[in-house]
């Protein structure tokens, strides 16, 4: 049975889709079978970030409504053959997703794939709640900024109350992924530090992704940064985060874009 991981945040624009693509591709590169499911019905973008926008024929809503088989809707990645995408629909019908339908699709995916990453829409409404509903683990994407941290806290509350695991009295494993981090600004006291974010949210750290131009370049090109430029700092941070997600005990290093500066901040351990 595969693991279902929801990538969520509450706030929009913090890097959920980018992180879903980068983490999913990183895990798939190790040979694991990975499915990426876009839950952002009406505003799908995971297909674009993955460079598969022109290959979408069927989508999640088609599968739920029975107009397409799951195997027809899944798009195999051209770079990593164990990586698949299930796109969201562009329909404007908000109720296109049903809890029962989503549950059936997730169950099928879980039986075939090692990892199912659910890319949540922003907000705390139905779409976001369905994306997290069947998850075993959650990656909470957070920017070191007040509104993002506040929304993350809200999402953590929902994860602990509204998921199947929570309702069965089980734990849902939660991890914070801090994105767009600028170590230099944090050191100058201009930006919340990693310690601040972790202390406020009391959720263990999965990784720190630096603010990086490479991430934008990767999305321009339609390739997860972990595939297109695996050697750069942001990609490395995602690759390490993926290894931690798989249970490896890797120390978290505060990444920095300019070399030779802030080296003393190295060596933070993952919680």
């Amino acid at each position, binding site marked *: 049975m595969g693991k279902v991981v929801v990538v969520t945040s509450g706030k929009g624009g913090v890097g959920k889709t980018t992180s879903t693509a980068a983490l999913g591709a990183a895990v798939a590169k190790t040979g694991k079978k990975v499915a990426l499911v876009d839950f952002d019905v009406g505003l799908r973008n995971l297909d674009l970030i993955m460079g598969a926008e022109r290959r979408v024929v069927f989508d999640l809503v088609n599968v739920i409504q029975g107009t397409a088989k799951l195997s027809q809707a899944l798009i195999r990645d051209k770079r990593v053959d164990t990586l698949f995408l299930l796109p969201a629909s562009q329909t404007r019908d908000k109720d296109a997703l049903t809890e029962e339908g989503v549950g059936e699709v997730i169950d099928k995916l879980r039986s075939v794939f090692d990892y199912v990453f659910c890319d949540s829409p922003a907000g705390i409404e139905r779409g976001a709640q369905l994306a997290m509903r069947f998850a075993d683990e959650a990656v909470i994407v957070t920017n070191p*900024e*007040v509104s993002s*941290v*506040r929304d993350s*806290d*809200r999402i953590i*509350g929902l994860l602990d*109350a509204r998921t199947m695991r929570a309702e069965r009295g089980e734990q849902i494993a939660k991890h914070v992924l801090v994105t767009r981090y600028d170590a230099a600004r*944090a050191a*100058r*006291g*201009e*930006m*919340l*530090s990693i310690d*601040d974010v972790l202390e*406020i949210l009391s959720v263990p750290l999965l990784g720190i992704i630096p603010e990086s131009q490479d991430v934008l370049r990767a999305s321009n090109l339609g390739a997860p940064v972990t595939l297109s430029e695996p050697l750069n700092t942001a990609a490395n941070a995602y690759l390490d985060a993926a290894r931690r997600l798989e249970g490896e005990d890797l120390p978290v290093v505060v990444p920095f874009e300019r070399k030779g500066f802030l080296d003393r901040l190295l060596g933070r351990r993952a919680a």
Partner: protein
Amino acid sequence: MNVFDLFRRRSSAPVARERLQVLLAYERRNRSQPDLVSILREEIMAVIAKHVQIDQDYLQVSMDRGETMSTLEIDIQIPNKSAVPMAIAG
């Protein structure tokens, strides 16, 4: 303005941290409240409905959280026409 003012103005992160800590402590406390009240409401309603027929609107449940103590206020109105307990009526 001296050098220290310049420095202080730049360190906005501690302010952000403190504001968040205060705000989230408040929001977390309030988050559990509506759910508890609605659960209590439903269960009280179910118990009353076993014996007396009343409308949902006649039951008011509210919770007031204080620093050291909270009060739970339950207001049940039983209209006269259905005031006769069902057990006796039946």
